[in-house]
């Protein structure tokens, strides 16, 4: 009988701690739009100054020594 009561008390204590932890965590949700730390956005970026202009390329954009077929320009 006594061991049964000890087991019941332990189970109740475990459940209580689990509920308290869940309440605590849900009350402190991380801000999902918050930026990552350390910042990773600029990682791997290549920057250069060419003919008076400033160029920056992320790893997802490649430059090439080929003839362009069209251009982006001010219109």
């Amino acid at each position, binding site marked *: 009988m006594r061991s049964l009561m000890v087991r019941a008390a332990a189970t109740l204590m475990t459940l209580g701690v689990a509920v308290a932890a869940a309440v605590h965590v849900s009350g402190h949700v991380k801000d999902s739009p918050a930026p990552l730390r350390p910042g990773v*956005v*600029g990682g791997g*970026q290549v920057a250069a100054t*060419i*003919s*008076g*202009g*400033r*160029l*920056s*390329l*992320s790893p*997802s*954009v*490649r*430059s*090439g*020594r*080929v*003839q*362009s*077929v*069209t*251009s*982006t*320009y*001010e*219109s």
Partner: protein
Amino acid sequence: MDEVRFEALGTACHLLGVGLERGRLAWATAWVASRHERFSRFEPASELARFNASPGDWVKVSPELEGLLRASLEAYRLSGGLVHAGVLGSMLAIGYTRPLRLGPTPPALAGAVPPPPLPEMLEVAGGRARLRPGSGIDLGGVAKGWLADALAARMGDNCLVNLGGDLFARGPGPDGDGWPVAMGEVTLLLRDQGAATSGVRRRAWRQDGEPLHHLIDPRTGRPAVTDLAKVSVVAATGAAAEVHAKAALLLGSERAPVHLTAHALAWWLA
């Protein structure tokens, strides 16, 4: 590779494709011309002109105009309010009342004032939209990039749509390495990416010695004052590239790199 060049949307357009269906370029040329007729504020019968003429009322809009209006609201949000489709009042006040090939009209600069926030001027619901009285929309800051994205999605699996320098490159390009596109002094190989350039040297004129141009700063309601001549941007879409190029131009050389580091894949500041 097939290509075609033509004038539409008040600018030069260039369409290219590899392995396109026969007649696709002619179809695409007509597609762009029809969007000019529907979304130009200078065409009195355009859908945009009719929408601007009905402020205060909920107006039925086509899915494409709805898309462009939603893109305008998104551009406003992405740019922190710097790309503002509701600056039509300022455009008219500075004399940009008709295509500039016809020349600007005399300005009334007292009317060039900062507009209210765009979400207070423009509401968009499913299939309809409403404009606040006294407001007007100009899609010149968002339409070309958005239309380039839309046309590239329809034209073919390997194509490039360039509408006045705002473009989207879809697929592997002519040699499989991406579409070679000149940006500033370099050539970039773009694949499923957009690019755009914004500047203050074109569509510019002088009135009584005062320099005026088409890029309105919504913070002042006047033509933007910036230490940058032009900004070119590569982003995931042509629409995003166009928005961030304009925002960076308005931010100036000191703050533009911070904005572009967070939002662009590549950029050129001059």
